[in-house]
């Protein structure tokens, strides 16, 4: 019989001092942290090389890239939650972001409250909107495949966008926030309290809260289970209806926050969310559908690549290179190209799980086929054996 005291570490053998509780520093966690540090080191080297080629202004674009990434990450987490649990791409997501920005604008300008109150109100209002959408529309489309909810979500998007157009006109608005200048760090690079620090801080805190939710709460575990396999989750006794409502609440709440952040770094206009919709879709697919961590990585990749390609495009736009007019406007094509590349090579994304019937990309599939054909020469059975 095993004595309990032999299997449990006694008080004397526990490490003293500050413990990273509840994260135990196992070998696996140490490996992950090491990998993360290596990636950060590679990134810094990459930026340094670019700075050598294009000048110190690359840091400005890197900062812009992180700004866009923060917004895209928050939005992508919301989108991927519904994509994983309800199984469809929510084409109304851009319009939900816009709605969030406008609700905050209403509170900010009409009720003359700080934008923070606007953001909180907007979060709550959008949670309501999400639940209403689920009850009225999307619960009736369960089991109809991926296309029917897409069509319905497009309808929802049209209603939201044109409702905003009708009520608030197509003008551009600005939030009433204190005017703050950039704090110069390095010549050519300035950090803005509102546009940069707030965006990063909100992005980080949302990422951290999602991580805590998914990993350490029962609701989070139930959400992961439902996203994995709806029928099995139901069979295990998980209340998938409650999980779905929670997912819609979080999804739309995150949409509202990313909309408010978007309004903070730019203007509030009816088209603001739709311009980001494809970026967010790209982030979700690159990261792997249904995975919040994939959404974070995908958002980072997509946002950084879109902004950091601008110096290259400007160089291409110079008359002695190609002379492309409005070259910097093509930066939006970069996430699209990354999306196509992911679809060609690894459709399940960075963090996506390969299903049993592997949806191989076209290129990897063709390569695999060619390699397999090389290895097994075709001939009548028995002919390649000695003796005949």
């Amino acid at each position, binding site marked *: 019989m095993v004595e309990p005291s032999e299997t449990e570490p006694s008080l004397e053998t526990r490490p003293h001092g500050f413990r990273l509780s509840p994260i135990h520093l196992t070998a696996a966690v140490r490996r992950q942290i090491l990998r993360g540090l290596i990636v950060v080191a590679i990134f810094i080297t990459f930026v340094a090389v670019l700075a050598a080629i294009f000048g110190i202004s690359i840091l400005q674009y890197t900062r812009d890239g992180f700004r866009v990434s923060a917004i895209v990450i928050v939005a992508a987490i919301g989108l991927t939650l519904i994509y994983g649990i309800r199984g469809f791409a929510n084409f109304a997501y851009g319009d939900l972001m816009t709605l969030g920005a406008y609700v905050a604008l209403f509170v900010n300008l009409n009720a003359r409250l700080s934008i923070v109150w606007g953001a909180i109100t907007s979060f709550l209002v959008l949670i309501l909107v999400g639940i209403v959408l689920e009850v009225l529309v999307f619960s009736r489309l369960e089991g109809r495949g991926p*296309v029917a909810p897409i069509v319905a979500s497009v*309808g929802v998007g049209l209603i939201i966008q044109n409702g905003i157009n009708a009520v608030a006109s197509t003008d551009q608005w600005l939030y009433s926030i204190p005017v703050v200048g950039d704090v110069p760090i390095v010549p050519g690079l300035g950090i803005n309290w509102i546009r940069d620090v707030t965006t990063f801080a909100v992005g980080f805190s949302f990422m951290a809260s999602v991580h805590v939710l998914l990993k350490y709460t029962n609701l989070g575990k139930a959400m992961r289970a439902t996203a994995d396999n709806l029928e099995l989750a139901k069979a295990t006794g998980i209340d998938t209806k409650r999980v779905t409502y929670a997912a819609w609440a979080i999804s739309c709440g995150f949409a509202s926050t990313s909309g408010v952040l978007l309004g903070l770094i730019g203007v509030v206009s009816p088209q603001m969310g739709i311009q980001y919709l494809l970026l967010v879709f790209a982030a979700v697919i690159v990261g792997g559908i249904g995975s919040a961590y994939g959404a974070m990585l995908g958002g980072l990749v997509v946002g950084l690549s879109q902004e950091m390609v601008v110096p290259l495009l400007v160089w291409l736009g110079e008359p002695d290179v190609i002379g492309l007019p*409005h070259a910097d406007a093509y930066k939006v094509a970069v996430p699209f190209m990354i999306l196509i590349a992911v679809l060609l090579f690894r459709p399940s994304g960075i963090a996506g799980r390969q299903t049993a019937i592997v949806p191989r990309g076209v290129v990897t599939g063709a390569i695999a086929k060619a390699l397999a054909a090389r290895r097994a020469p075709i001939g009548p059975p028995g002919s390649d054996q000695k003796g005949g």
Partner: protein
Amino acid sequence: MRPLARRAATKKGGDPAAVDTGILVNVAFYASVSIIFAVLALGFNLQWGYTGLFNAGIAGFFLLGAYTAAIVTTPLDPPTIVGGVVIVPGHLGGFSLPFAFGAIMAMVVSGLAAVLIAIPTLRLRADYLAIATLAFSEIIRRITTNLDTVTGGTNGITKIPRLITFDPPNPFANAMVVLGAGAALVLAAFLVLSFIEESPWGRVLRAVREDEVATMALGKNTLLFKIEAFGIGGALMGLAGALFTLTIPYLEPSNFAPALTFSIWVIVIVGGAGNNRGAILGAFLIYGMEWASVILKDYVPTAFKNTIFYTRLMIIGVLLIVLIIYRPQGLLPEKRRVLK
């Protein structure tokens, strides 16, 4: 999409024949634009109604066809430079070929683009195809807006030559010519589609839509069939683009926003997916709604003028939701083919 209905040129003075002609021109315009929507819907019907491929980038293929036809048929239009600054960017042109060339080139370019988009995405899920095609149409529109020297940028392409130029200019005759050309083309498209859809090729498409794995098990290369269907659908959308240049002799990128794609979805869903007659009927119905809303604008107080435009789009949104939940088979459902 901006309201397309033109003000009918009614002559002042009350000559009844002139007023009638004005109304006729307006109605002919309505019919011509409905025909454009109908050809788009026929193309989408082939892709989705028959083969089950959900294309969210219809506007992009439409744009490619329209701009190709415009570039092929317009005379030279160099940029207007004043004091070293480009005031109006010109566009690529100067070929001045007849409309038939324009239409054929439009179909080729759009069809080719459809095939290229299809290759990486058709093997994957329906929603990946939707996202990729939506991304494609938006990127194409951005490129068109930015590639000033080729496409005329936000100014677009103007002075597209008419099919037959009347001297002195006769709007009624112009409208009739456009309507006649459109009607002929849509009839031809409808007949060709009906023929190939009842053929063995069309049967395989329907089999792919119902159960792709079973079709593969029967030895059909389903990917090839899907690419062919998607390509032909894209070519039809290019043809619609060429028709667009006939009907409205100027192009600009804002005509090709995603709202156009969503209108085509409504048309095909209303008319019944897989039903070509329904697609044409749906086009006349849905564009009729837009045309009526523009006429209504005149009778409504100024404050509400723009609201009519937004309300129409909201109605389309509601239609999409209600139809897809309660009557996805549409008004005229596909006839069920049963072996007797």
